């Protein structure tokens, strides 16, 4: 490959190809002297014709014409009698000479033209391939960064120059990178944006600039400007390919920018909706307990009530404040989840401790239900973030107390299988409507006509915290009735191998001591 290309390069210099054409004709003439004397000088004509045909396979028209003319003249001069004169005596020789010259010229020119056409086709094919490659690579690029990377690479390999993309951001401002700007570059950029016309070097506008600036076009938006370092203007072929490149890159950038815009709009829409829901429900949910506290304490201050009535009012205040505190806790947990700053602090814990803690915290709420705690006999220690799992079980158990009839049982189970801890909260209430089973973990989801207050955050917090442990939670209606939440969290058995064991008993013999 490289050898061929060096020869091609060498031949592309006109002077060498002319020298080659003349040299080979002269060499051929010298070598043919012997043949002419021993055989016939007509043979030499055929040899020269063969040479010209051969040369025309790789030389352009000029050198071929030179070779044809030179071979005709030398053949006439050295071989057609009388020798060493340009005079041709015989009519048939004259005819052969004219035919020779015509055949050489026509043959040479046609061959070289066919070759040139083939070259042209090859060039066109290369261009098509380059464009195809660019299109393929661009369609695979999923982000703006990918598109720029692909475009930069393809431009570098086709045009041997590295481009700089100056893109519009989503608000329509041109993003200027931290580069040492050339004098007047900013002015030039805004000119290009305003007139939507290329400028800079090799263009009629600002030709003194070091770079060429080309606006990128899409169908609807202008994605930005491309800055090109281009020491020489492109030739006609390159320019054509370059235009095609620009269109492709512009379209790809437009496609991705529009995507981004659409996504941003959707996100804004969603967060706006969330914001509204949150504020509506927060103000509602906060007002009720606050109203209770204000009303009850005001009543207590302004009247003489019997001790049982007073105690009832005090209880109302306490219940309302517990409810307020729960709201705050859930909001804080939600914001911890949403901010993505939930740092897990896992440690080895006894499931028994977890269940105890939650049931004792919910003692008042659980007064009307019976909680059945079932922990597998062989339950190992479990590695988890106690605080988060406490919140998980708390929310599930609180839900169960709120949505089940008085006197029903709530099962709280813990088992361990295949390196998974499985926790189950199963109540014997009405369960979930089948369409609610799917949405129960969504933020702000509330069961229709729910009698209890709340923001509808509890279960989404549960899900978030379980997932933070790399676990899953599922909800189904149990065959025996009631809702059943199943949590499974990966959990290896703790490593006890290096535990120092001192199993000596402290009392050697209790009778001797007493």
């Amino acid at each position, binding site marked *: 490959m490289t050898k061929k290309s060096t020869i091609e390069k060498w031949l592309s210099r006109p002077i060498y190809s002319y020298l080659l054409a003349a040299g080979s004709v002269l060499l051929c003439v010298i070598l043919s002297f012997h043949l002419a004397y021993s055989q016939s000088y007509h043979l030499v004509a055929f040899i020269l014709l063969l040479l010209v045909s051969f040369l025309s396979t790789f030389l352009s028209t000029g050198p071929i014409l030179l070779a044809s003319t030179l071979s005709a003249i030398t053949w006439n001069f050295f071989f057609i009698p009388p020798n060493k004169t340009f005079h041709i005596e015989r009519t048939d020789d004259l005819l052969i000479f004219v035919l020779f010259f015509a055949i050489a010229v026509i043959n040479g020119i046609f061959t070289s033209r066919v070759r040139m056409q083939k070259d042209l086709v090859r060039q066109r094919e290369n261009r098509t391939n380059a464009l195809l490659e660019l299109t393929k690579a661009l369609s695979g690029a999923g982000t703006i960064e990918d598109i720029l990377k692909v475009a930069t690479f393809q431009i570098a390999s086709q045009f041997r120059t590295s481009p700089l993309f100056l893109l519009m951001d989503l608000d329509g401002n041109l993003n200027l990178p931290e580069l040492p700007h050339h004098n007047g570059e900013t002015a030039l950029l805004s000119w290009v944006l305003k007139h939507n016309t290329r400028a800079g070097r090799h263009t009629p506008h600002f030709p003194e600039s070091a770079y060429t600036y080309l606006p990128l076009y899409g169908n609807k938006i202008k994605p930005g400007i491309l800055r090109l370092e281009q020491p020489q203007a492109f030739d006609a072929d390159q320019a054509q390919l370059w235009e095609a490149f620009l269109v492709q890159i512009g379209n790809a950038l437009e496609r991705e920018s529009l995507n981004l815009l659409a996504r941003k709009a959707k996100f804004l829409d969603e967060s706006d909706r969330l914001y509204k829901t949150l504020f509506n429900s927060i103000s509602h949910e906060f007002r009720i307990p606050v109203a209770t506290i204000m009303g009850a304490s005001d009543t207590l201050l302004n009247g003489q009530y019997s001790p049982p009535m007073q105690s009832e009012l005090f209880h109302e205040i306490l219940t309302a*404040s517990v409810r307020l*505190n729960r709201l705050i806790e859930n909001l804080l947990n939600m914001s911890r989840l949403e901010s993505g700053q939930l740092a897990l*602090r896992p*440690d*080895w*814990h*006894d499931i*028994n*401790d*977890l269940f*105890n*803690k939650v049931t004792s915290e919910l003692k008042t709420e659980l007064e009307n239900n019976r909680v059945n*705690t079932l*922990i597998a006999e062989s339950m190992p*220690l479990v590695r988890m*973030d*106690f*605080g988060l799992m*406490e919140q998980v079980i708390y929310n599930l158990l609180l839900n169960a107390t709120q949505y089940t009839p008085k006197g029903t049982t709530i099962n709280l189970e813990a088992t361990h299988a295949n390196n998974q801890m499985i926790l189950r909260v199963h109540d014997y209430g009405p369960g979930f409507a089948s369409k609610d089973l799917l949405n129960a973990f969504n933020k702000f989801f509330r069961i229709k006509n729910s009698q209890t207050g709340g923001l509808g955050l509890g279960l989404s917090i549960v899900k978030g915290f379980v997932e933070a442990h790399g676990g899953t939670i599922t909800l189904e209606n149990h065959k025996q009735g009631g809702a059943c939440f199943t949590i499974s969290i990966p959990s290896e058995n*703790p*490593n*006890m191998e*290096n*535990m*120092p*064991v*001192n*199993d*000596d*008993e*402290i*009392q050697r013999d*209790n009778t001797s*001591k*007493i």
Partner: protein
Amino acid sequence: MNDQPTILVIDDELQIRRLLEISLSAKGYKVAHAATGQGGMVEAATLHPSLIILDLGLPDNDGQVILQDLRRWYSKPIIILSVRNAETEIIQALDNGANDYLTKPFRSGELLARIRAAIRLSEQQSDQPIFTFGPLSIDMVNHMVKKSDELIKLTATEYALLCLLVKNSGRVLTHQFILKEIWGYSYMEQTQYLRVYVAQLRKKIEQDPARPSFLITESGIGYRFGE
């Protein structure tokens, strides 16, 4: 001892100070308060209170720093009462010498119980060798542990753990502290060992090991021994 123990409340929230003053004086305590860390230090030095209730979020100085400063000379109980409920914050406060902590919002009943336990513990500093908790008695001279007058067989490690907790009853001991005391520095991260021994010990000393009443878990922080 004077007639009534004095309690110093260091908290910048006026409402909390007022609330504590009412509920504590109703129970017969004398109450003094300060709204800043510096003011608290001065009050503590002049009044020598029997107990200090300290908030961690003070306007002039971080409560953890005040706690460290107090502990340079003040040896009586300090209870932390703060809205900061991160486990790391609580563990740091306990390591800095706090006896106990409660997070706001709190129930006054719970706070009063903690105060009673802490004061009793600090006054009980006599080196008595026998401790009794309900049906449980621990005789540290004769190495004997009895539940309802029945002798309990404990292993050496279980006994060491029990003694450590009993000697600090009413006080929250962090996992790291217990692990260091029982097994040594290199075991300070091996919480699982501690859990195993706690479970064993509970089986032997508790009436209902699933619902312990003596050896109480302070989730994510440590253990406390009490009635």
